[in-house]
């Protein structure tokens, strides 16, 4: 509870607080019983700057009692709330507790709405305009930083609206990606493939598989390397494997860049991609809405 390094500091603060409050009362009653003498023009005889004379302008007595009320308030406050050193107060209020209460209130307010959608199938939720709006707001809060406001992604961050899925585009796969996160890993294959020329050969073979313009001689040379080194994950036809997140190489979608340089770098040095897990801070209902929203993006 206490943030003080030593209990003595807590006592030190508490004593200062109590003494200050008591001093306020002493000062108040001290002045209340004091009398000032005024002359026949109603001034006290004190003069500043040649001609500014002080006049006694008595306050109504209820005004003084307002000060007493503030003192009583502060004592009650210090009994109920934290304020006196590390004393927690009778109410046990804390900012962390208040935050939890507010979270609970929000859960109580939005829970029924989320529950309503949670009972429905993802495909049905994706077709619901209200759910899509809620999903979009969640997406803009939690996903847009990497995947872009339009879900179009950018280099290294997959687009979610292009019908190409690294880990599968069915609702369950999308949900798993959001909840558990993903760790994409393409190992550096430079050594396994050979030198730069061998890497270029493999690239041209991939271009042939995907229908991009290619150098026939290089592609033929690259086939053997591809079949032994790359096909294990990307399959012999280069269509990828959603089970392990190996991308499809023949759909002309290049997550890490479509240029020759970028592709050769991907092969030689490998690539890493990480989607963080969200289950720690997004509940099932929100993930359900997000899943439906993302699912609906590419439909």
């Amino acid at each position, binding site marked *: 509870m206490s943030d003080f390094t030593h209990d003595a500091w807590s006592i030190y603060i508490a004593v200062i607080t109590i003494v200050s409050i008591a001093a306020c009362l002493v000062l108040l009653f001290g002045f*209340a019983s004091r009398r000032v003498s005024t002359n026949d023009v109603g001034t006290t005889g004190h003069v500043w700057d040649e001609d500014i004379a002080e006049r006694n302008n008595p306050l109504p*007595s209820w005004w003084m009692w307002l000060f007493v009320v503030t003192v009583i308030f502060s004592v009650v406050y210090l009994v109920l709330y934290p304020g006196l050193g590390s004393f927690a107060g009778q109410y046990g209020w804390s900012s962390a507790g208040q935050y939890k209460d507010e979270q609970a209130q929000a859960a109580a307010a939005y829970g029924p709405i989320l529950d309503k959608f949670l009972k429905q199938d993802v495909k049905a939720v994706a077709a619901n305009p209200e759910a899509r709006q809620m999903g979009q707001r969640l997406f803009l809060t939690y996903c847009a930083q990497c995947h872009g406001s339009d879900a179009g992604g950018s280099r290294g*961050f997959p687009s979610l609206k292009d019908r190409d899925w690294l880990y599968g585009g069915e609702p369950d796969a999308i949900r798993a990606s959001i909840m558990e996160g993903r760790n994409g890993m393409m190992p550096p294959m430079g050594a396994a493939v050979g030198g730069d020329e061998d890497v270029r050969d493999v690239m041209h073979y991939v271009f042939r598989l995907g229908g991009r313009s290619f150098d026939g001689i290089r592609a033929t040379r690259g086939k053997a390397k591809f079949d032994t080194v790359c096909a294990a994950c990307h399959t012999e036809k280069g269509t990828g494997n959603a089970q392990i997140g190996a991308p499809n190489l023949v759909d002309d979608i290049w997550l890490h860049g479509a240029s020759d340089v970028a592709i050769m770098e991907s092969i030689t040095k490998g690539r890493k991609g990480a989607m963080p897990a969200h289950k720690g801070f997004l509940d099932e209902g929100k993930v359900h809405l997000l899943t439906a929203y993302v699912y609906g993006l590419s439909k």
Partner: protein
Amino acid sequence: MARAAPLKVIDAAGGNDVEESLYEVRKKIYPRAVQGWFARWRIALVAATQLLFYGLPWLTWNARPAVLFDLGARKFYIFNIVFWPQDFIFLTGLLVISALSLFLFTAVGGRLFCGYACPQTVYTEIFMWIERKVEGDRAQRMKLDGGSLSANKAVRKALKHALWIAIGLWTGFTFVGYFTPIKTLATELATWTLGPWETFWILFYGFATYGNAGWMREQVCKYMCPYARFQSAMFDPDTLIITYDAQRGEPRGSRGKSADYKAKGLGACVDCGICVQVCPTGIDIRRGLQYECIGCAACVDGCNQVMDKMGYARGLIRYSTENAIKRGLTPPQLIKRIFRPRVLVYMTLLSIIVCTLLATLYLRSPLKVDVIRDRAALMRETRDGKVENIYRLQIMNTDERMHSYVIKASGLQGLQVVPAGPVAIAGATTQSIAVTVQIDPAGIKPGSHNIMFHIEDKEQPSVRADEKSRFFVK
């Protein structure tokens, strides 16, 4: 000590020293009823302000309350305009206008606001009227308070407080009716389903009205009100204030109606004390301008009645200026001095701000847009070699009906917005839209370029918003 503060103590050797406490018990004031020109003005202003305050929440406009401050939804309805928090500048403008008007009126006519339009004065006036109806005028009230508790006293006091509390609660109810539609509030009250905050504010505002207008009265002006203090700072010797003409009035003294007071060496003041009896703050205006004077002119009306009865000229106590009294200015001379530099400056500022605010209000677009550029990726390339930037458009339709907007971008040749709309946005709602802006980068300098978004209504091109942003090209 004397060195620390430049303080010197004048020897008050007059022998008239009085010992005073720093606190005192308030002496209750029993203002006497008064009729006259200024009193009629005050009644008119009480009626006008209260008709406005109590009546406005009941008005209906476009099937909703004409005036409603919906704090929960952060929308503020005033007739056919819906203000959003983004329109805060209008409130600022209104406050500046109020402040400048206060400066202007105070410089010209003293504490006019205090005397005629301040809620404290207005409610006190209403409460005093009830008090007079129930307990009688000054002398009767003093007698009632001085007497011991009798059935008559108990009934009158109870009736008075019951009426006061009823008005207080009605005021609190009306006040909350500006924040919750008052008809809904009335239903909630009838079915006993008021929300906790509604209940609190009705009771709080009701109690404040009852306490301030019934019990506190002039103490609010004397001890609590900040305006009362700084208004005196706007006075100058040409400000119209309520003044006792001492040259004409002194020496005061009682005399018979037919007596030739000038022969007796007396002034016009008959020393009847009416001006003191009618004063709601309990001062004697004959002692000159005092900070307690709220400028209500009750003493002017009271004195004029007496002057009429005596057959003397009116205006022994009147609106005049320090200079007019000192130099004996004629009314036209006095009016001419109203238009002095400070007044002209206030008037100029006030008219500039009023015109600006009205023009801004007239030109105010029911469409507001915020453009937020995606920052994580500066740009991306499409497979056909174009460059894309992504933006989030927060489109706020402050109109009460649905609008469809088309989105365009300019600033670079060939900018294309996807989707270009039209986007339908329901009345008085906000929607976030992700848009992609594309361009063929051939011939465009790499780096950042200024672009402009143009969002306009499909049917009504005058409803539009232009927002700046930036576009990155590699």
